[in-house]
């Protein structure tokens, strides 16, 4: 029988150089090179910074039930005191087989499941999936439906960014005050979604070739009201925190993501733009009616947590600008293409990739049809999963408390990370 190794004791001993296998293991000492690395960590440090550890390193599993991880997500961190030497994100606790379920059911039946990906932004998820299927089947979308999509998507962006900033500040220790202010505004937008789609979060609103129902009478006026009131909240929010010295100290220069690294890790969304890369699919792809609207793309300079916060605040202002234009220009007419079929929908064999700028980044749906009633292949490109993969590069060398803030600034929803 092989002698059992006390790995935790061993890694501490290894890092201090006081390897005494005889004291740790029963029986003859195995050669060090043959020892399995503990929990997937290699024993040689990755960077010179990590080798500078003096004293014992400590391996801690933050999560899956840690309150700062925004859900069931685990970070295996190796700590030297408070400093993060290594960090390994562990996903998959919320995996529910979304893609395989979608390959089994009809095209329409996966629409409500897309709501559950990023449950803060169900309307952009709907739109991305509808976009992919419309490209696959070559369905057009009526003008009013396109405007409704833009309006709902921008409202979703307002909702997501305001909540995210609330969560981020909550991670910094604001004890929920900005979060509650953000949730107060979110409530108004959710009321709008309920009046339009019937549900507050799981909207299931888009259909292939348009939207499910037209806006009820007076709904657009309610949107106008909310949009007109929103700048007041933004002013309040900015007064509350943008120049707050504690926020500046906690976020400036923390978690810097260089533009080159962000591009090579295919990071998208506000995180990429905070690193100073001008890449917004609303401008680059021009899907929907976005080329008709005038808006600017805010960019950051440093790529730190503060820039990510600021880019989101500025994006909310641009979203309000788009909403004003969309509410001014929205025409009357049908909201669903008359050729669109609900049942017995069988697109011709082919493949399509539909992507859009979701609040968290590039959300894409890749579909292959073999002419049957269900997709042959269905794949989601989730922005928050891919943005999360470079967490270690941003966290290394910072303290544990900073790692929490950096994770908050990535903007993840575990429903989408694990799918």
């Amino acid at each position, binding site marked *: 029988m092989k002698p059992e190794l006390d790995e935790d004791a061993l890694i501490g001993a290894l890092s201090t150089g006081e390897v005494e296998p005889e004291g740790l293991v029963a029986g003859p000492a195995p050669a060090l090179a043959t020892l399995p690395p503990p929990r997937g960590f290699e024993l040689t440090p990755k960077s010179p910074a990590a080798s500078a550890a003096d004293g014992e390193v400590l391996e801690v599993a933050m999560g899956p039930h840690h309150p700062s991880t925004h859900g069931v997500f685990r970070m295996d961190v190796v700590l030297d005191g408070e400093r993060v030497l290594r960090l390994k994100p562990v996903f998959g606790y919320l995996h529910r087989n979304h893609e395989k379920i979608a390959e089994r059911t009809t095209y329409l*039946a996966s*629409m409500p499941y897309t709501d559950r990906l990023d449950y803060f932004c169900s309307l952009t998820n709907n739109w991305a999936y509808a976009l992919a299927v419309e490209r696959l089947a070559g369905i057009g979308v009526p003008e009013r439906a396109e405007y409704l999509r833009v309006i709902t998507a921008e409202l979703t962006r307002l909702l997501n960014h305001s909540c995210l900033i609330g969560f981020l500040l909550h991670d910094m220790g604001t004890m929920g005050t900005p979060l509650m202010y953000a949730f107060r505004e979110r409530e108004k937008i959710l009321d709008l979604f309920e009046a339009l789609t*019937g549900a507050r979060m799981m909207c*299931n609103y888009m259909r292939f070739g348009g939207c499910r129902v037209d806006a009820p009478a007076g709904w657009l006026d309610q949107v106008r009201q909310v949009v007109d009131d929103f700048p007041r909240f933004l002013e309040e929010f900015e*007064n509350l925190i943008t120049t707050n010295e504690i926020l500046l100290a906690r976020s400036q220069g923390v978690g810097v993501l260089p533009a080159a690294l962000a591009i090579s890790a295919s990071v998208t969304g506000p995180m990429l733009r905070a690193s100073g890369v001008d890449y917004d699919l609303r401008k680059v792809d021009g899907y929907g009616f976005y080329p008709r609207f005038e808006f600017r793309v805010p960019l950051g300079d440093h790529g730190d947590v503060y820039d990510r916060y600021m880019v989101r605040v500025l994006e909310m202002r641009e979203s309000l600008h788009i909403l004003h234009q969309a509410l001014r220009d929205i025409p009357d007419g049908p909201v669903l293409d008359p050729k669109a079929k*609900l049942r017995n929908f069988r697109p011709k064999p082919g493949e399509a990739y539909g992507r859009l700028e979701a609040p968290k980044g590039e959300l894409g749906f890749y579909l292959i049809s073999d002419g049957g009633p269900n997709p042959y292949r269905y794949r989601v490109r989730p922005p928050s999963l891919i943005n999360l993969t470079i967490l270690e590069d941003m966290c290394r060398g910072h303290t544990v408390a900073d790692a929490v803030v950096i994770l908050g600034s990535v903007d993840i929803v575990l429903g989408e990370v694990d799918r």
Partner: protein
Amino acid sequence: MSLLGVGLLKGMVETARNFVGSYHDPSRLTTVQYPEERLAPKENARNFPFLVYDGADSERGLRCVACKICEKECPPQCIYIVLERDAKGKPQKHPKVFDIDISVCMSCQICVEVCPFDAIKMDTEFELSRADRFGGLLLRKPDLAKPNVHYHRLHPTEAAEVDARLAAEQAKAAAKAKPASPPPPKPAAPTIAPAA
């Protein structure tokens, strides 16, 4: 760079303004004391499906013909239907069993959209906590059957449209059937005064 602490004080002032405003400013008085007070129901709101019946007989008046389209299209497969047959085994266009497991249902409304007979609609009842988690949340046909009046009360605009459409279809079918020997007409969609 401004004086250290000014940003903090600005934030404190904003918090104080919110705190004081929460006593008198309607835009900050957002809390609703739920069991005593309730928000006004939204007309489009949806929660779980119910079956519509016309007239007074909750069994014979059901619009459902047990075509099983909703059972097939339901994404989480929470509907179970058995077609009623007479003694000779002839299908009766009526569900013998119609169960919806609302612990599985995800309120997506796809059953409502695909139903060609406007027989299934969305309820807005949300206070559904039960002592029995499995049996209590498995709704059988008698629990699901609700009168058309109920539908009118929940979604007046939509129900009026549906009634008008059904009446038009009936008139068309009657006109078409007149030259030949007319089959016994289906019970007409009742004309129900919209609820106040």
